[in-house]
């Protein structure tokens, strides 16, 4: 803020500005802050979005001058995934906890309509984690590992024509959630004149489609001029390489072609140095601040509004979070009671119905039982009757048999002739 603005602001708040008569010493405050932050260590999270093979890992390696382990991904992943790796780096006495998140399989699928969704989901998930921590009763924000994405490097393919449709779609869905810095990847395939036209075309496409990319801040006088100039050179045309090539009597990071050597840190060859300056040396802290004060706050507001919290009540009176929370809790409680009642009723009803059905079944069963019993009785009586008759017949028959035998033996004794026997036989047959 300019000093006149500060003066006006103070006047409004009824604060007088005074001059001191000696040296007090609070000018060391920034240094104290710096010391504290050095002790704490810094944390920075970069998201790299780009097609498979476009050079994301190589560029990060070159930016941080380290060979982070990585391997080539396949072109045949069915969906887009995100891969995050965290590293601890140190430069002089400053410790940096760097998290690099890469897209895997971006731009490979035949149908790319859903390709941007996993990226959006990942960014939201990091915001959500932070929000949860912030809302905790016992929270430890001081030691919380902030995983929110501070910058998204979007790698544009160097076709020389314009953005790809996927690029437009993805950036439109990311620009309200993260600071986007678009870069032209593998820029050693675009000649100088082509590059000018290409950059102009890209920026005009972004502007005409309302894509908000990150602007280097111009409010701080010490860096405003540089930043403004850099803003005009976006998107940066970068070349990455960790190969060492001897040029003259120096060994530099470069790519050796049959027709020449592309030096990564030569500003005539590409914008790598500019990117490193802007991203790491000058504006890293601003990127973190923007993420926290702009993107995260937007996410938080939307999320809480979804949950039903507002800052202003129905009569336009400010509503405190606690009141809203209580109101919500009450509402939920009431809702829960009602649901419980409902379920109880339903349960009782069902039990009754079931009981009725079972009773009915029981009755039927009983009736059947009776019926069968009766039948059974009848059958038995019939059978008894039959048996009785049969027994009588048997008795009658055996009586007759007995008498005939006696008769037979008597007649045999009385006569001894065969004729008698024949007659008897005839008689017996007759009998």
């Amino acid at each position, binding site marked *: 803020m300019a000093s006149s603005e500060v003066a006006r602001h103070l006047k409004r708040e009824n604060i007088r500005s005074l001059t001191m008569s000696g040296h007090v010493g609070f000018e060391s405050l920034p240094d104290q802050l710096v010391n504290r932050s050095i002790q704490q260590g810094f944390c920075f999270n970069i998201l790299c979005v780009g097609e498979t093979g476009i050079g994301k890992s190589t560029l990060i390696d070159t930016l941080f001058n380290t060979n982070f382990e990585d391997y080539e991904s*396949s*072109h045949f992943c069915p969906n887009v995934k995100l891969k995050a790796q965290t590293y601890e780096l140190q430069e002089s006495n400053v410790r940096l906890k760097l998290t690099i998140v890469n897209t895997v399989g971006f731009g490979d699928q035949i*149908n790319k309509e859903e390709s941007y969704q996993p990226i959006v989901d990942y960014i939201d998930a990091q915001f959500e984690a932070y929000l949860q921590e912030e809302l905790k009763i016992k929270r430890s924000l001081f030691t919380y590992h902030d995983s929110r994405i501070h910058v998204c490097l979007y790698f544009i393919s160097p*076709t020389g024509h314009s953005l*790809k*449709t996927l690029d437009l779609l993805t950036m439109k869905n990311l620009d309200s959630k993260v600071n986007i810095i678009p870069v032209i990847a593998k820029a050693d395939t675009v000649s100088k004149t082509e590059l000018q036209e290409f950059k102009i075309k890209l920026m005009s496409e972004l502007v005409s*489609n309302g894509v908000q990319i990150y602007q280097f801040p111009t409010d701080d006088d010490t860096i405003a001029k540089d930043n403004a100039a850099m803003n005009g050179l976006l998107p940066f045309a970068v070349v990455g390489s960790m190969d060492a090539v001897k040029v003259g009597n120096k060994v530099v990071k470069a790519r050796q*072609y*049959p027709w020449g050597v592309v030096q990564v840190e030569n500003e005539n060859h590409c914008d790598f140095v500019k990117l490193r300056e802007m991203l790491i040396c000058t504006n890293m802290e601003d990127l973190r601040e923007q993420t926290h004060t702009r993107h995260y706050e937007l996410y938080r507001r939307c999320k809480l509004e979804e949950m039903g919290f507002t800052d202003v009540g129905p009569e336009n009176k400010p509503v405190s979070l606690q009141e809203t929370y209580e109101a919500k809790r009450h509402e939920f409680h009431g809702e829960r009671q009602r649901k419980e009642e409902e379920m109880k009723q339903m349960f009782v009803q069902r039990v009754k119905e079931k009981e009725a059905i079972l009773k009915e079944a029981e009755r039927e069963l009983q009736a059947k039982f009776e019926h069968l019993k009766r039948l059974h009785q009848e059958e038995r009586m019939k059978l008894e009757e039959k048996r009785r008759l049969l027994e009588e017949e048997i008795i009658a028959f055996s009586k007759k048999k007995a008498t005939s035998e006696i008769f037979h033996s008597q007649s045999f004794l009385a006569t001894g002739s065969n004729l008698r026997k024949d007659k008897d036989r005839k008689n017996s047959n007759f009998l």
Partner: protein
Amino acid sequence: DKQDIDKQYVGFATLPNQVHRKSVKKGFDFTLMVAGESGLGKSTLVHSLFLTDLYKDRKLLSAEERISQTVEILKHTVDIEEKGVKLKLTIVDTPGFGDAVNNTECWKPITDYVDQQFEQYFRDESGLNRKNIQDNRVHCCLYFISPFGHGLRPVDVGFMKALHEKVNIVPLIAKADCLVPSEIRKLKERIREEIDKFGIHVYQFPECDSDEDEDFKQQDRELKESAPFAVIGSNTVVEAKGQRVRGRLYPWGIVEVENQAHCDFVKLRNMLIRTHMHDLKDVTCDVHYENYRAHCIQQMTSKLTQDSRMESPIPILPLPTPDAETEKLIRMKDEELRRMQEMLQRMKQQMQDQ
């Protein structure tokens, strides 16, 4: 003895000359299709190959416009002449291929186009007046593979598999000036592996005769080993080492399109135009077209036996001899027909007698 030699001389050794003369008089035609995502340098390469600008009035679409763009087929035909030999060159462009967000089956308009040309030729060939048949069949398709990845992508595999049995596919690594020599080697190897793995049939250079000289055989070997060609195109002329060459000017050096140490452009040009142009045409006629024709006829005859009332739009040429299986079926059906006819006769008799 001279008289003996005269008697031995018949004169048909001049046939090649006669063929040459007649062909010069007739002129040649060639249809080349170029396919690949936009921004891979297709038009620049065509310009470099044929040294004419076919795309003067081209309008490039912006990203927004391309989101739901469909694939178009654009034909540019030019007549060019060199030392008395006339060539009618047709370039078939495929703008929009692979550019939309959803590219499912984006090669369908292209396969339809190729089939249509085959069908047209088939009709013409089977027609009564065959004096002026125009051959619009696609003789070769240059497919541009992006050099920014690690190898083939799903859309590349999908396209090539849809077209490899219909047209000669020559895959190229586009914009090869973004790859250092070791990267080019690795990428070529990877692409060759993947082409094998996915069972894609790209155009194979024919074997050279065993009685050719060593130089020629060496050249042929080098050609085969360089596939897929890593190409760079340019429509600007720059000054390099005191000479004016076609190339691209960078702050770190000049890429010369026709320098064999820089890229395979010369190999591609020689193969496509100077040595294999006619072979590409021959393979198209003898293999791809014949496959199409046989398939077409089979489909038509199977349809005819199902529905004998259908009029065939094209006069049917004599069927190839059917195999044992089909013969048996035919005989059975004949038997059945005969029996039915006899029955009908008998019934008729009966009715008459009554």
